[in-house]
């Protein structure tokens, strides 16, 4: 990789790339896009087979976890949601769309994230350079190749490359020529890139920094349901689909996504929280077989063991995840802790979740206030939880769903509260 190569690329994107995109109809792009997404959703397709092993390794998910993760990311990026996104774009005065390619700096923690900025860029006819992280260099280039194969006219308008992040000299010609920079990453890396973008000439800069998510379960969500051992309960046990949904929202991507749940706030008493924790632990144990965790990162595993020991030392309720009585599952299968202190805390990951009993959900806005703009999603169940939606939105939460749907955003989703189209064209 060289400065000259990137300079030529930038000029290609801004010249022939922009012209090529301008000449394409929405229908052509969407057709090629849908076919490409379908190919990457199909484990038997040549495109998937080519990168499957490498993607399992680089994503550090199990094969089943990768399959589920790709379905979650790609599933909402085709068909009706994609068409809807293009319709929204068309309503945004195309004659006023700014020029200059979009430089997208991706992060490595989740596979296939490249599609989330790529589709909107095509919708607003903005040429795109996707920079993949060194830790996951496979998906974006493979997807772009497959897309261009299906619509060769796109070739000058899209590119996906990898180079070591933070290389000031290498990135300078890109920052000077880009019209907009979308940056996914931690605060330090994003701040550094934002500063250099401003110094280079001030392309629009949009940051997608680290965030986390939570669930809120209202008292009225309880009803005839299923207990932790699968028994029918008439005494108000939480409905099974809520528990199953919560577990999925914790477990998908091994909890590495910004829409992964780190905490559940249950309107009710500590005994009710213990019941929920038991049911959640049992479901996470079942999911550990169906959606096995990937290899655990040793520092994260170490941090989880610290949390577990601290919980035990404080006498907190911590149901064990077991594959059979007396046989515990690996640390990556999950950890559930009932935490009486309502303060929200993020977790080290590895499917670690705290369940907080809260007598009055109206306190939640105050409890979550320190996390304003660092929360991404909320899974809500029950009318009293649903009533919190406006206040949660005020805190910066951009996605509110039922448990189980949180990690399936679709194409028009406003990541970080920002429309994917507005991120690219401003206004």
């Amino acid at each position, binding site marked *: 990789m060289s400065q000259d190569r990137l300079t030529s690329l930038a000029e290609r994107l801004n010249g022939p790339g922009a012209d090529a995109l301008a000449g394409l109809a929405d229908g052509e792009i969407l057709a090629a896009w849908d076919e490409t997404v379908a190919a990457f959703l199909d484990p038997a397709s040549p495109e998937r087979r080519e990168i499957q092993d490498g993607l399992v390794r680089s994503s550090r998910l199990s094969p089943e976890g990768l399959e589920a993760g790709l379905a979650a990311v790609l599933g909402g990026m085709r068909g009706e949601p994609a068409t809807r996104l293009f319709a929204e774009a068309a309503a945004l005065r195309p004659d006023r769309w700014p020029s200059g390619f979009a430089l997208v700096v991706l992060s490595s*923690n989740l596979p296939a994230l490249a599609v989330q900025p790529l589709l909107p860029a095509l919708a607003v006819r903005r040429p795109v350079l996707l920079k993949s992280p060194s830790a996951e260099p496979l998906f974006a280039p493979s997807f772009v190749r497959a897309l261009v194969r299906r619509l060769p006219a796109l070739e000058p308008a899209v590119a996906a490359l990898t180079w070591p992040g933070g290389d000031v000299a290498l990135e300078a010609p890109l920052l000077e020529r880009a019209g907009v920079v979308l940056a996914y990453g931690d605060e330090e890396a994003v701040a550094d890139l934002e500063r250099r973008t401003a110094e280079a000439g001030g392309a629009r800069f949009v940051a997608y920094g*680290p965030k986390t998510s939570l669930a809120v379960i209202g008292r009225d969500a309880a009803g005839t349901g299923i207990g932790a051992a699968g028994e029918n309960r008439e005494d108000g046990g939480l409905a099974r689909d809520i528990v199953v949904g919560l577990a999925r929202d914790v477990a998908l991507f091994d909890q590495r996504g910004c829409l992964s749940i780190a905490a559940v706030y249950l309107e009710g008493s500590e005994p009710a929280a213990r019941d929920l924790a038991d049911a959640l632990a049992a479901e996470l144990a079942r999911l550990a077989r169906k959606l096995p965790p990937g290899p655990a990162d040793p520092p994260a595993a170490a*941090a989880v*063991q*610290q949390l577990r020991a*601290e919980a035990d*030392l404080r006498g907190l309720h911590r149901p064990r995840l077991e594959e059979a009585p007396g046989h515990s599952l*690996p640390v990556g299968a999950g950890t559930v802790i009932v935490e009486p202190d309502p303060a929200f805390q993020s977790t080290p990951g590895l499917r670690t979740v705290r369940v907080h009993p809260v007598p009055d959900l109206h306190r939640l806005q105050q409890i979550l206030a320190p996390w304003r703009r660092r929360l991404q999603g909320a899974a809500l169940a029950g009318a009293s939880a649903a009533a919190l939606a406006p206040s949660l939105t005020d805190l910066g939460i951009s996605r509110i769903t039922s448990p189980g749907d949180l990690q399936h955003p679709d194409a028009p989703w406003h990541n970080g509260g920002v429309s994917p189209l507005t991120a690219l064209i401003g206004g």
Partner: protein
Amino acid sequence: MGAMADDLVQRIARFLRDPGAGRFEALTLEAFAFQVERIPAVRALAEARGALPGRVADWRQVPAVPALAFKRVELGLDSGGGEAETFRSSGTSGRARSVHRHAFPGLYRAAIDASFPRFCLPRPAPPGGVPMLSLIPPRADLPDSSLSFMVDYVLRRWGAPEASAYAFGAGRDGGSLDASAARRWAEARERDGRPGVVLATAFALAAWLDAPEASGERHRLPAGTVLFETGGFKGRGRELARPELLARVADRLGVPPDRVVREYGMTELTSQLYTDVLAGGDPELFVAPHWVRVRVLDPEGPSERLEEAPPGEPGLVAVFDLANLSSAVHLLTEDLGAIEPGGLRLLGRAAGAELRGCSLAAEEMMALRR
């Protein structure tokens, strides 16, 4: 505190002085039982893990108290009016501070007596004491720092009063260097030729080397001078990679890498581990004194009792420290390490509860910072 407690403290103190004065295995089980009886949090952990005294036959089965717990839980014996100290961690890197109520500071001093000279003092020990320069703030500045407690004690115990000095005070942004005092001490050693000991955190050392007032200074400290280095940078300022730090110390102070002793300790423990470089040991491997055992545990294991990682494999460092009688004799640290034939190699910290989501993986974050 009671006669039983006093007796156990005395026997542990004797064992620290003389490994022939007791049996490690027997003392560990006594110490554990003592803590279960008197520290509710330790009892709660033992009950939760099904590992109360009577069911524990070996120190490895003693449940390890997580270092994290010192930030939230009362984990110290009531001294019953006897001498006691309260130590707090530095609270750097934006994290909550650990609080360690130390009911037996005499054991802390005994641990220092039994280890510091062996690992850190020039040999033969000069009459009249060893010139010492501390770039660690004195206790008067940081009364709740266990490191300052240690350094004050070391200077009183072995330092030559007329040739010892402090050159770092507490203050904002990690403290303030007195570059003039450091320079005067170094120049005095160059004149009198007496090898001494410089005690410093990596942060303070780098501050001295980078100080504008010290720009261009080069000292040739006498052969035999020892640098005692501890603490790291802890998220403050520009971190120097270790090879660079050692190279700069050799160039600017004349202290070669084989005279740089590293110390591994923490607020939550009483005893320290050291690199045994003065005896020709590996400069990257930490050695424990005879009353301390170090294991590396596999953090990915399913079991509530973490298993030992194979030699050379990374894992969570667990320390059994008999001198830590007033809180947790068995501590699960937040550090990663690996056991090698010559000792413990430290590999970094366990991850905190950092936000992930759309953020970079830890490896990329580290790469960006280099």
